[in-house]
């Protein structure tokens, strides 16, 4: 069992948790992920290591409530236990001094891009960060991002905060501008990573994306996480999660994310039913 030590509500749908997992914390690095399962009936879901503290023996995760498991996770409180918390999985990000890098974080992707931006900054890069979300209420960690970036651009789709733009717009301006961009890192919804990759492609700037396929074991055993690259299929959990965005077959990735859509809907319904029942029982008591 892995205890939740701390919880923060970052925005309407994004929550942060600090989990007691000393052995995972001892080894975790930026770019890696964990897989958790809430209880005996739970699904295994992957979440990026948003931060780690080797001394305290903790891992920080940040998640967006999109379905049954993340919604249920959001109801847990410090003191509650998770049945499974396995990691660190996947390869760490390859941090070097590349020169000038642009770090793009979309939505909940701001969480995993943060430790990467920090490491890139520490490694001597000139870090320009772009963070974006649908609206202001979904943004978080602007201060933290600013602290590890030489420049920070904030945008929202609806203009409720910062610049009214998709993250690809300021990115394109940077690519066309004076400064040479040596590398781009993008983490966010698959559709955003697709368009970031399409944006950088004509400029041939290497673009690293962190893919979020559906996973089960996270150890190369099921093949459910496979992604089509130019040169064949690879397993995101063991060969990634970071890949060259220009080589990814995005349409296949997007289609595969939809495969269990109907079941995901049923799972949420079943969960809400369960919550209603519990609430009714409590009222009755």
């Amino acid at each position, binding site marked *: 069992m892995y205890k939740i030590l701390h919880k923060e509500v970052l925005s309407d749908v994004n929550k942060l948790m600090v989990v007691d997992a000393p*052995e995972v914390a001892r080894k975790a690095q930026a770019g890696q992920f964990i897989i958790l399962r809430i209880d005996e009936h739970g*699904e295994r879901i992957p979440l990026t290591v948003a931060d780690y503290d080797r001394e305290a023996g903790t891992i920080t995760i940040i998640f967006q409530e999109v379905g049954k498991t993340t919604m249920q996770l959001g109801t847990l409180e410090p003191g509650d236990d998770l049945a499974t918390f*396995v990691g660190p999985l996947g390869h760490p990000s390859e941090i070097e001094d590349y020169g000038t890098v642009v770090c793009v974080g979309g939505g909940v992707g701001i969480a995993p891009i943060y430790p990467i931006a920090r490491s890139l900054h520490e490694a001597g890069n000139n870090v320009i960060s772009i963070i974006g979300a649908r609206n202001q209420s979904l943004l978080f960690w602007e201060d933290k991002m600013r602290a590890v970036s030489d420049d920070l651009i904030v945008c929202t789709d609806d203009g409720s905060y910062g610049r009214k733009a998709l993250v690809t717009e300021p990115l394109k301006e940077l690519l066309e501008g004076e400064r040479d961009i040596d590398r781009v890192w993008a983490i966010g919804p698959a559709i955003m990573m697709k368009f970031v990759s399409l944006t950088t492609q004509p400029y041939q700037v290497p673009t690293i994306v962190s893919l979020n396929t559906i996973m089960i*074991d996270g150890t*190369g055993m099921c*093949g*459910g996480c496979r992604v089509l690259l130019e040169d064949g299929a690879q397993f995101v959990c063991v060969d990634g999660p970071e890949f060259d965005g220009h080589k990814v077959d995005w349409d296949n990735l997007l289609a595969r994310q939809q495969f269990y859509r109907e079941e995901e809907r049923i*799972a949420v319904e079943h969960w809400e039913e369960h919550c209603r029942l519990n609430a009714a029982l409590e009222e009755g008591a």
Partner: protein
Amino acid sequence: MATLTQRERLRIPRQEMPSQDPQVRIGNFNEVALGFTLELAQKEAERCLQCAIPHCIEGCPVGVLIPQFIRALREGDMHGAVEAMKVNNSLPAICGRVCPQEVQCEQSCVLAKKGQPVAIGRLERFVGDYELARRTCPLERNPATGKRVAIVGAGPAGLTCVVDVAHEGHEVVIFESLHTPGGVLVYGIPEFRLPKQTVVQSEIDYAVECLGIQIRTDHVIGRIATLNELLEEFDAVFLGTGAGLPSFLRIPGINYNGVMSANEFLTRVNLMKGYLFPEYDTPVKVGKKVAVIGAGNVAMDAARSSLRLQTLQAQKSGGEPGEVHIVYRRSRAEVPARAEEVHHAEEEGVIFDFLTNPVEILGDEKGNVVGMRCIRMELGEPDASGRRRPIPIEGSEFEMEVDTVIMALGTSPNPLVFVDAAGLERSKHGTVVADRQTGRTTMARVWAGGDVVTGAATVVSAMGAGKRAAADINAYLRGEINPWAE
């Protein structure tokens, strides 16, 4: 019972094991074969001739004392039967259910020549279940030695090794990457062949309880700790990490929605209990027309699980169940699955398409599987495996309508554990090079056994390897041998 003459024994027919009716069982995941009653077991036991030179034992990879346990069973001495069994097999309730007996012990039984070997597997299961229910044979532990042993992987190899190493008095820790120990026994072989709670988990709990074994689940060796790090902390390490890496056919279309490895499918069904969705959170879905590629045990399990999911879906929605095909490039004679599984699959209505090989998977514009282009095959000369080589028949291509494709094409060792394991030699197939008698690898203080050494094989052969390695580890820790000394 009065002692029978050999002639009378020969006249007793092989006893059938009661099983669920095929039409009923495809609507549930409960065990298919229900097991012998004491009466049936003793009747079957009467068939054994108690041969002076029992060839049956030679056919068993772990050398179960077959005539001894059968004799005790028929004399009504169940305690004696269990004791005789446990000399060489600590998991009879599992082996009795899953061993390919027809090519092992039962093939070597003298009565096999006349067509009807003693049903050794069914008797073994009976004895194993008796012990599971009553626990008459406690596992014991010698005084603590102060030595520590790490076992990587909680499959049959690791679980067998641990019992003998812990018995010796060593402190043992099992590291398992999944959240439940058992290896293929929990994530691969379905509930309807091997009950998880009452058989597998019960055996594991018992060993943990009697022997003070620690099992650390959620520990992926190679990530949370490496082999070299384990060697700093432990006196010996046994690798029983199996062969869990799935292969996909190298044909176009494998990434369409609805194409998956048997490992993914079976893991969803078994480990994650997907057949109980939405009571359990992990979904699993099959369409109306499923093609399972391959014809080993894995393929049979995938096909029969698909059939059950289809039936359950149809019962819920009131629709028609659907079809499940086994698509195999060789012929019936080469089918590698256990005979009983093939028989059960046929009874349940799985359709076999022999001498057929997929060349492309077809999808629609949404990325879903809609069909499979296949080619017919014929058998040529025997290949390296001794089986006749399938050759495509030119111009025989055809399309098959399917909406789910499950690839059950064999697996290889997962390389994660080999991170930071310099000096550990592996074959070109990725398997660990280890001595088959002792399990010693080329890396000092590291032993290995089971599928990680042989490639995908059987439960009982993995158990045998675990047991032999345990004996060697114990001898090493007693200071009797030092295989890696220069």
